[in-house]
């Protein structure tokens, strides 16, 4: 009952409400509507904790079972803890004081806790060490005035270390991973664009036409016709097919959503 019926009821009630809200321009419906949207955001906040917990679980597990490449899990943990520390502290003045020793102490504390979780034997020594490092960190935080915790304002998001980690590590990793696509597209095109059957050939030809249209160098070779053809491709068959696909997707989504609201489709919700 509590495990099955109530969730189903919740889905039905809120789903139906938002369904009808769309047709009710009245203020009061707007109120509740905006209100529900806020709720979702707020619930999302708590998901943060769930995610982080799972992240740590996975890596502790990896280290515990000495799974292939387990050593690298430490890298993840260190990166995480370091970044979080930077994300909640900020300098008061210009010089650093004991900030980095503090970060190190925090890192060691967490590592020790991870180790305690991962070890098969006696976890006590690790916990002891963790306690010790935690103590060091507290002492430093207590005595050092060159930096301080910011739990009130989002100053740390602009703080030096946080910005640097973001700009120099996160961004370059992000952009580079993305840029691998350039190469993968080339290899994918080379491997897959072969006129095996009529469908593959159509795919291949359309791609070639469009690619050569965007290439002014091929203009003299193929002349006006290619660019006209590719414009036609983009504006006529493309338009038609996209429209068909969009309608299909819309249909599928509406059907799925309806099934969910009506409780016909409830596979997404656990049983037992």
């Amino acid at each position, binding site marked *: 009952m509590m495990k099955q019926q109530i969730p189903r009821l919740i889905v039905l009630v809120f789903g139906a409400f938002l369904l009808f809200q769309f047709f009710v321009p009245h203020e009061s419906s707007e109120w509740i509507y905006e209100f529900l949207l806020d709720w979702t955001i707020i619930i999302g906040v708590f998901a943060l904790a769930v995610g982080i917990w799972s992240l740590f679980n*996975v890596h502790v597990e990896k280290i515990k079972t000495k799974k292939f490449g387990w050593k690298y899990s430490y890298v993840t943990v260190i990166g995480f803890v370091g970044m979080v520390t930077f994300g909640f502290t900020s300098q008061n003045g210009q010089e650093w004081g004991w900030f980095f020793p503090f970060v190190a102490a925090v890192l060691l504390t967490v590592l020790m806790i991870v180790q305690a979780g991962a070890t098969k034997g006696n976890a006590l020594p690790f916990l002891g060490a963790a306690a010790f490092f935690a103590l060091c960190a507290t002492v430093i935080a207590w005595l050092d005035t060159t930096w301080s915790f910011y739990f009130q304002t989002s100053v740390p998001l602009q703080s030096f270390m946080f910005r640097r980690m973001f700009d120099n590590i996160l961004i370059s990793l992000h952009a580079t991973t*993305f840029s*691998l696509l350039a190469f*993968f597209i080339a290899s994918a095109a080379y491997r*897959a664009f072969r006129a095996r059957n009529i469908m593959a050939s159509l795919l291949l030809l359309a791609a070639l036409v469009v690619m050569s249209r965007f290439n002014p160098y091929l203009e003299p070779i193929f002349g006006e016709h290619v660019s006209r053809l590719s414009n036609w491709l983009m504006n006529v068959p493309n338009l038609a097919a996209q429209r068909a696909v969009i309608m299909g*997707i819309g249909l*599928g989504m509406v059907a*799925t959503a309806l099934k969910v609201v009506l409780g016909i489709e409830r596979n997404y919700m*656990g049983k037992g």
Partner: protein
Amino acid sequence: MRHKLKLVLVLVLCAWTTAAAQTDTALGDSVSAAPALPPPLPVTNLQAFDTDNDHGHAITLTWEKSADDGAGENSVLAYEVFRWFPFQVDVVDALRKSVSETRDAVRAFRIDLPRAENALHELSEDPGKLRTIRFNVARPSDSTFELTVDYAIRALEDTIAFMRENAPILKNRTKPLQQDLEKALARLPQAHANYPKDGEWRSLGKALVGSTTYTNTGSKETTADGFFPDYADLYYRVEAVTVDESIRSEAATVGPVQSRGQWFHTGKVPVLGFVLMFFVFTLTFVQMAKKGANLYVRPLSGIEAVDDAIGRATEMGRPILYLLGIGTATDVSTIASFSILGRVAKRVAEYQTSIIVPCYDPIVMAVAQEVVKSSYLDAARADDYKQESVFFVTNYQFAYVAAVNGIMLRERPATNIYMGKFMAESLLLAETGTLAGSIQIAGTDEIAQIPFFIVACDYTLIGEELYAASAYLGREPVLLGSLKAQDWAKVVIMAVALIGMLGTALGWPAFAQMFQVTG
């Protein structure tokens, strides 16, 4: 033509007035010599009513053009619209202003006080920091003034004392002010009802020549300046104005009129129609299916591949990698993917092979764990279920990609199944999967990504097929029934499209207009 006329008119008038001025100075009362333009005729049939299909807080005015609109020399240039405001409105505005100002002041204090204290602390510790402290001290403006440490310290102390003293006072003022504001707002309708006592006409703006309608809309937020009260008697008047602001028709007045929100948006009837259609279709066919009408579904190669793929994984003793994409639990495609995951996990449990589900969003992870767990329960292998097999990676697109690529190359899954919402990462993942030599089955509703999956994967579910997949795998009559409903909806679309096209071709736009959704 009309504009040219206006221009001429303006020039003439300007010339004339200047001339008049000169003659004025020359000889006493020759102004009367100037024939004053007769005012234009007023607008007729002025009507005011609540704007339809809105949440209230708006009134629409309509009128018929003044007879002089676009006519000869006293042509109308614009229609100026006025509304009658009770003075109570000013009271409300004033209160609102002071509330917000007090709030800002309190807030400013809260932010500056700690800064000042910190600066004072630093300064008293080490006077050398005079240039670096993060607080600009109040100082005389003349350039010769040299800032000294003791001056700065004194100034800081004064500032801090002042703030400490005033912050609480201000804070205590906000609540009563707030209450006054609410009281004042409550009195507004009454004040409007007092028309024409204790109020005045105020201009709302001008509607250009030729226009016959004007909408006066305002904010629904009582805290916003442009607050527009609902259920209050409002009075409007419209005057036709000529080139010369002073020459205007007498006013046409209308009122009282009240604005209110509607409970049904008539512009959205077509949507409602389709919703009902869907509803009926789905229920009908689900009922039919339950009664056991056998429903044919055409084979989808992508779906059939799933079973073989799981079998293959079992033979090779390698895991199956299932990716839900980077959608959140709020995307329908992700929800569809959940139910596919359920089916797949059930098979996996039956074949006693293993499944890996790295997740991009914690909520998605939570749901996925529930799904996989319950599938293992269905397969009566609850104890084979490992919570760690469904885990959260990171909520950052390309970090997720990097991690999953790593998994592909190290765990070497026999099969990769991509179902759900995929963006730029589609090809990055699929190419790595090919490199790792896995069988790949993909399905997404991101049109832009389908080509990449088609190119790099062995089987691809295109768009709607993704939503059909769970019904295919489940083979439950109920779900097959809903598939049937989708097909019938397609038939309706085609019919409508055909009729609509013929309609537009044969000059029958009414039909097409039925599908114009407004607002």
